[in-house]
């Protein structure tokens, strides 16, 4: 049975103020929003019911802010443990001692995702002074506790030149997974995005490193997260459309509306956290009804992608609709980093 992923922002509390954060982009907060424990119990129940109806296994990605800063974080971890529900954490490195990591593992935490947004100076400028070194220092205690470590970069014009070097850093520090995704701009900061050629050039450099490290038996997995990797691989002759015969079937590409949903600390359900996509509220709505209803279908109009409808990769790629939404104001507009001419 497949998993269904719930990206669950349990709090907005954070001890970083990353320049690209979608939470703090909304302005200063007099009070961090965090979910109450009784609501967390409802969320878990609603998610489990959804999964039962959908024939899926739930998998939670706890995040925030930094989820470990929620005053009831360990209560939640215990609730998940008691229900045998696996979870991962997307969080900061600042509170991860050996003791904490062991406790996370005992509660059922399987993975911890850290962020690296460039080499030291660039990363610290984006996140906070000292963050780069603290991030790398958090990898060993997590691994000692048996927790898989993922390192992810958010790519923009600020750091695109350094992403290939981050591959080396991830390998050197024995991260289990490395991946990157793009910053979602707003229309006001489109100048933070790369040109299509810049982005493709960076991917090519990364691809060469991935191949080299894999040939050497490297233990780090390089996850091809950005859907433009499909275009890249197609152009390299590594992806054969003939393996996918049904013209109206969506086989891959953006998974918004497919196999994950996001829940915010006030219960709002988003089809995709990276764009404005509120579809309901987990504390008021049945998730299965939401997911199979009209609010969600608005994110599955696969024939509305302006550029992709003319592309033979429409069933597999479609770029990142959230980046298109931020850049153009329309998720169905062309992905601004897609270099393919159609």
């Amino acid at each position: 049975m497949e998993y269904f992923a719930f990206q669950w922002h349990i709090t907005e509390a954070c001890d970083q103020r990353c320049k690209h954060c979608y939470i703090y982009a909304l302005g200063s907060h007099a009070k961090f929003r965090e979910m109450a424990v009784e609501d967390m119990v409802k969320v878990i129940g609603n998610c489990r019911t959804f999964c039962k109806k959908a024939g899926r296994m739930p998998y939670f990605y706890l995040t925030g802010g930094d989820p470990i800063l929620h005053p009831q974080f360990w209560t939640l971890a215990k609730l998940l443990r008691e229900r045998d529900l696996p979870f991962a954490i997307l969080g900061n490195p600042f509170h991860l001692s050996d003791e904490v990591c062991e406790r996370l593992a005992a509660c059922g935490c399987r993975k911890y995702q850290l962020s690296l947004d460039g080499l030291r100076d660039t990363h610290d400028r984006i996140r906070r002074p000292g963050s780069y070194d603290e991030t790398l220092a958090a990898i060993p205690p997590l691994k000692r506790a048996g927790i898989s470590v993922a390192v992810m970069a958010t790519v923009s014009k600020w750091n695109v030149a350094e992403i290939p070097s981050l591959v080396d850093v991830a390998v050197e520090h024995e991260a289990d997974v490395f991946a990157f995704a793009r910053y979602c701009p707003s229309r006001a900061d489109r100048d933070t995005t790369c040109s299509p050629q810049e982005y493709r050039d960076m991917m090519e450099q990364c691809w060469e490193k991935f191949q080299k490290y894999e040939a050497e038996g490297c233990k780090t997995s390089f996850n091809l997260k950005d859907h433009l990797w499909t275009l890249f691989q197609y152009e390299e002759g590594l992806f054969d459309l003939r393996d996918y015969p049904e013209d109206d079937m969506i086989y891959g590409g953006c998974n918004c509306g497919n196999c994950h949903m996001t829940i915010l600390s006030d219960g709002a359900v988003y089809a995709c956290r990276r764009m404005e996509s509120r579809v309901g509220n987990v504390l008021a709505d049945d998730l299965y009804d939401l997911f199979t209803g009209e609010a969600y279908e608005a994110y599955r109009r696969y024939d509305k992608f302006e550029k992709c409808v003319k592309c033979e990769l429409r069933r597999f790629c479609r770029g990142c609709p959230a980046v298109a939404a931020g850049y153009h104001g329309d998720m169905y507009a062309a992905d601004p980093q897609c270099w393919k001419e159609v």
Partner: protein
Amino acid sequence: MGLKNLFAWYADAETKAATACGTACGAGDPKPDPKPSACGSACGAGDGK
């Protein structure tokens, strides 16, 4: 087009699992797959690597 066109929703799944794009990898064993997870995650739900 909509949910009815999603292969992953109807097909017997093998290992593919997904996450939002904030996650680096998706749920699944053993080598991480991009899905399922949201794009904030580097990998998807699952065990192992």
